[in-house]
């Protein structure tokens, strides 16, 4: 049986990561906030990828969360970061519940292209909707927390960092529990052989739909964090290149480990920031080489580094009895 960290230990790690923001340089706080936010949406893609389906259009839910929060915040004056995050998650989730059952009937490239198409439909609609600012989008106010306003830039950045890290951390813990659960195992089974899953009495469409809805919730919450960090939203949230970045993180991470998603997201932000700083005209090339390197040397993603080690530790040795049995077959 696979063993992992106990949820209480994971909670302590999340708390430590949030408090670590106190000692981080100011310039890294917004970078870490974006990394945490991207990790959240990539985590959703990884959850979905465990069923064998990759969404190339998570920007759809990312934008739904962002626009939902921005519209509600401006209309009702809601500025609390936690409430905004919850609104974003609900907006993304509702859309996911509507779309999920329709897409669950497809798989592979058809599934991916349909998600991409839907996100581009939203992008097109947003660009043409002048009431939502058209291609320029619109702004929202600075977020608060529990009624506290943060006028100091560092404090405001730290607040958003802490909320995003804690949210993403809790999502990571939930994902870890999910991965070990009946649904998590059934998801891997759907990935490998969905017909056999049906023969065992499990609806593979239902499994895909649930994973899809969870990914949409995470994407919506992630969109709300991006909105809070930029205090501005525009149709770019739904554009295919935005979705592509999240898939990039998910590919880097692989589908076997939650922790890998955080590592991949942070690695991507660091590579992007530093290559943008030192190689401003060729930073995309550096990112491409980085991705190629990971695919070449770690085809199952960064997570395979420690999953492989764990398997080696926990798998029983091939005893004489089993060897004999296998030889007999």
């Amino acid at each position, binding site marked *: 049986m696979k063993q992992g960290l106990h949820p209480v230990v994971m909670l302590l790690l999340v708390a430590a990561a949030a408090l670590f923001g106190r000692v981080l340089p100011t310039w890294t706080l917004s970078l870490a906030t974006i990394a945490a936010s991207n990790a959240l949406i990539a985590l959703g893609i990884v959850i979905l990828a465990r069923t064998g389906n990759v969404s190339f259009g998570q920007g759809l839910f990312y934008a739904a969360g962002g626009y939902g929060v921005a519209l509600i915040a401006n209309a009702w004056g809601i500025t609390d970061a936690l409430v905004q995050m919850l609104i974003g998650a609900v907006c993304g989730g509702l859309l996911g519940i509507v779309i999920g059952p329709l897409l669950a009937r497809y798989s592979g490239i058809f599934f991916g292209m349909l998600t991409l198409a839907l996100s581009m439909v939203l992008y097109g609609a947003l660009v043409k909707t002048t009431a939502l600012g058209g291609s320029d989008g619109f702004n929202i106010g600075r977020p608060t927390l529990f009624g506290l306003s943060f006028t100091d830039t560092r404090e405001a950045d730290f607040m958003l960092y802490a909320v995003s890290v804690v949210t993403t951390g809790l999502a990571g813990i939930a994902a870890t529990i999910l991965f070990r659960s*009946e649904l998590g195992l059934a998801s891997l*089974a759907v990935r*490998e*052989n969905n*017909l056999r899953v049906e*023969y*065992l009495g499990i609806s593979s469409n239902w499994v895909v739909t649930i994973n899809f809805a969870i990914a949409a919730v995470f994407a919506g919450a992630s969109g709300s964090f991006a909105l809070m960090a930029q205090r501005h939203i525009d149709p770019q949230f739904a554009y295919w290149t935005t979705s592509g970045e999240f898939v990039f993180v998910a590919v880097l991470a692989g589908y076997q480990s939650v922790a890998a998603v955080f590592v991949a997201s942070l690695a991507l932000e660091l590579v992007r920031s530093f290559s943008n700083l030192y190689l401003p005209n060729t930073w995309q090339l550096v990112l491409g080489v980085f991705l190629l390197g990971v695919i070449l040397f770690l085809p199952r993603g960064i997570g395979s580094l420690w999953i492989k080690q764990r398997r080696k530790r926990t798998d029983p040795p091939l005893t004489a009895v089993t060897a004999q049995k296998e030889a*007999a*077959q």
Partner: protein
Amino acid sequence: MTPVLSVRGLEKRFDAVVAADALSLDIAAGQKVSLIGANGAGKTTFVNMVTGYLKPDSGSIALEGMDIAKRSPRNVARLGISRSFQIPQLFIELTAAENLSVAVSGAGTRALSFHSPAEGHGRRDKVLELLARFGLGDLADRPVSELAGGVRKLIDIAMALVRRPKLLLLDEPTSGVSAEEKFVTMDRVIHAVAPDAATIVFVEHDMEIVSRYADRVVAFYLGRILADGDPHDVLKDAEVRRYVTGGAQ
């Protein structure tokens, strides 16, 4: 007494090929029925129709009197018909125990849990007990991709058995197993299956296996039933010898 499986006038064509031609068959509880026939005779098509993978062009299929001809494989499985496959259909990146855990999840009456561990203690015990029954207890935590074909076959059958089916369909349970091992394997299967599945239908090409383990044989030829009855009689039938066994036995 209502038969476990009752098939009436079952027809299935694939363009010009007749895979099932007015098949009618009753299988009573407790029988061990072997389906025999040359390649293309319609045995696997019959199994696929009974388990909901293929829909018949016409005719009825009833499980304990309930029509199941239009139902999906998932619904058929839930109603009590399980199957194994000629080529084992497993989740090869998962371990043997994880494969069975998925089957245990499918056999449950409630929805899949988001939080209950897939290999919690009660479930793990059940999985290990089932693996042990097939003599595979010490392979529980090995990925299926590392296991031999014969072992995979047994895991495939074990997965079909988790649901304690009313009717268990085994598609060539000894194919790919060496001549020396086939009786050992089949003994193990019959012994392991006995507590959970009283009625078994198995597709088989090996007439030694058929005559030893079946208490009824149905011979297929070009989508029709050529002979049906006691193994001794069917295997001696002139038409069966001519079109199916080629004089074997």
